[in-house]
């Protein structure tokens, strides 16, 4: 399972990087969204999958999965939501200001 997940995560990263390399602003933002999925899955996979019960003490189980990576990922999900929304709004303002979403045309002045 872990090896399968590693391959899936590799695919997610490859697609995300491809999207990030695109010159269209919308695709770049979509790329940041998918790359965060890859990161979250990677963190969870590294902590050994499906060993023991969900980390809820009142289930009366003996062994639990590792709760710490889950806490980390939970934080990461929320932060990446912040990043995505910020990027979206920046993309919106950029388009309003420059009338283009083509990153090749958004290069700034030559002497900067």
């Amino acid at each position, binding site marked *: *399972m*872990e*090896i*399968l997940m*590693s391959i899936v*995560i*590799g*695919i997610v*990263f*490859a*697609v995300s*990087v*491809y999207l*990030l*390399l*695109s010159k*269209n602003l*919308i*695709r770049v933002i*979509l790329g940041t969204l*998918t790359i965060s*999925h*890859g990161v979250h*899955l*990677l963190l*969870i996979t*590294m902590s*050994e*999958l*499906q060993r023991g*019960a969900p*980390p*809820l*003490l*009142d289930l009366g189980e003996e062994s*639990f999965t590792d*709760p*710490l990576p*889950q*806490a980390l990922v*939970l*934080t990461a*999900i*929320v*932060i990446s*939501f*912040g990043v*995505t*929304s910020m990027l979206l*709004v920046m*993309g*919106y*303002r950029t*388009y*309003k*200001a420059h009338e283009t979403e083509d*990153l090749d045309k958004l*290069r*700034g002045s030559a002497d*900067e």
Partner: protein
Amino acid sequence: MTFLHWATISPFLLAILVPFLYKYFRKIHTGWFVLILPIVLFIYFIRYLPITSNGGTVSKSAPWVPSLGIHFDLYVDGLSLLFALLITGIGMLVVLYSIYYLSDKGEKLNNFYVYLLLFMGAMLGVVLSDNLIVLYVFWEMTSISSALLISYWFHREKSIYGAQKSMFITVFGGLSMLGGFSLIYVMTGTFSIREIIANVDLVTGSVYFIPAMILVLLGAFTKSAQFPFHIWLPDAMEAPTPVSAYLHSATMVKAGIYLVARVTPIFGGGPEWFWIITLAGLTTLIWGSVQAVRQKDLKAILAFSTVSQLGMIMSLLGAGSAAYYFNDGDNLLYTTAILAAVFHLINHATFKGGLFMAAGIVDHQTGTRDIRNLGGLMTFMPITGTISLIGLAAMAGIPPLNGFLSKELFFTGMLNASDYGIFNLDTWGLLLPAIAWIASVFTFLYCTILFFKTFRGKFQPEKLKVDKVREASFGMLLGPIVLITLVVLFGLFPNILAYNVIEPAMQAILPGILDAGELFAVHIAHWHGFGTELWMTLGVFAAGTLLYLTMNIWSQSGFYRSERDIFNYLYDNGYDGLIKGSQLITRAQITGRLRDYFIYMCVFIVLLIFYTMFRYDGFALQTSNLSPIEPHMWLVIIAFVLAIVAIPFINNRMTAVILAGVAGYLVALMFAIFRAPDLALTQLMIETISVILFMLVFVHLPKLKKDDTKPSIKITNLIVSIGVGLMITLVSISAFAFGSEIGFPSIKEYFIENSKELAGGYNIVNVILVDFRGLDTMLEILVLAIAALGVISLIKLRLKEGEDV
């Protein structure tokens, strides 16, 4: 910190006060306040003279960075005292001269004196430090203050050029020197010069001996304007003349000489040291004197002449280092060269200081320094003319002035060196006196040109920038008069220096070479009989006069007409190339495209990780301790992969967002399967909001166009992204395998055990978030708040007409 320490740094302390003195006492020329310090310091250092002339030394220590073996150690012996007296003595006269040279109206005197004091303190630090690192720090400070003084009239383009050039060259040398010092530390384990000399066997036996020597010499040669690094010195003449007289002839450029003299006991005695220094010195000597002949600017002639004289002192130090080979102190055959070096060092400071000041007076009173416009000034400026005449005669080596004595000793030193019979000198030895003689002919020639073109010949008032040429005021003349008096005095009675100053300096350069109680028995005489030296001197006069008389013939040649040293082209082209090259690299690299930057990062990381994996065999695959794949899992994963892979191919923005949403919900499902209910819930909620947000924004964005990127770029993107994906997969598989191999215990047990007991919660993930790592969560909320503020302000922001984001 002893009194000696305070004396060394006193110029820095006064420099702090200078701006206030300038501001609150505008009526009084700031120079008068500054003048007090060198006088006091000169008297203070004179009091050390009896100690050193009896062979004694003084050393005082103060800790600076004791853990690294760096102590602010000061050491006064014959050599450092000689330099300290030169720095304060000439400094005194220069400050006096500058009071009249720089008017207190219109000149930024506060800047000038701050820089000058910085230099004075730094230079005292260089010559008095016993610790190499402290010496290095002061050394670089002299470079910086020198550049500041050269660019004193910073609105002139040439000043900036000269300052930059001197800075580049001397700081390059300084850094090399630091490398050399570090190697010395590696060899000996100490930065203290005296301790290094005591353990000199560690240095001579080491493989680093030659590299360290060359690096240290690079520092000395750049500072002392030795060929081919001499090109900065003529351009440094853009500085005000007091500065040229002080830094660029009498003191700072002699720091390299000082360094070579100081480390002679460490490196001297071998053929490398002997040949490198002697040849560098002689090349500089002849190159400088020939170049000086071509110059038309008074200060440029003096600058190249300084270059040439520095080369002469340097070559003498090289020749004298052979004394270590013979280890025979009482044999004058080997030590005359060192004697000549020390003596000429003093003489050069006196006559060249005086000459620079005289050149400054001519410039000040006539408004030009071009010898083609000058002439016949003896009638109008008899005192300046006499000063120049004596100074130039001393430089040309005319008896009975001090320059004559040191030049004779120089010939003796070179002739002796050719007789050593070591280091292949029996083959090449004759070269040394031959070069010395030719260079001296040119020295005689430019001295003659300088005097006759300026003070004799036809007076050309129409070419001058002033209406009436007058002799300078007494205050301005005082400095050069004192120096020229010394020239005559040392010329007539050279032995007043011999026992008090030269003998202790020689002992400091060549320690351990004499038996206890022995002396070098320095005695300088005017008359040596009809020896080779005398015939050489007479030959110089004859050949020099002949060349001057035939000047009308050779002055038409291209050699005389062009002035620029060919090494300047090398520097200029190198400098331009450096700037163009770095611009080229920057432009190629900083394209302004997001894609390019991202590719650099990805390619670099991917290559680095792949390299490391192959190099250190970092890949591992573990198949035993895996969790089973249940059949329904296949469905989820295939759906997820399909959704993700489809996104780049979709040209409809709504479909793309929905696909991203599908992928997000499938991630939530996977979290649920992986026993992470909290994650699943959070992911569901966040994904919903994200999709809504996307849709809201997309209303205002243009439709997704078909990707019209060029195929070649697409393929590059594809390769890079596949590389990243592959890297992540491999790292992930290996990390997992290594993780279970090491068997490092997870800290999860702590949370499982204590979740209920300490925090009273059953949901361990929640407890971690709000309790164990509560502070992290609070900061996370802060981050979200900042993001929210950013989002709101970006949406609400209304720009005025014409304003840009």
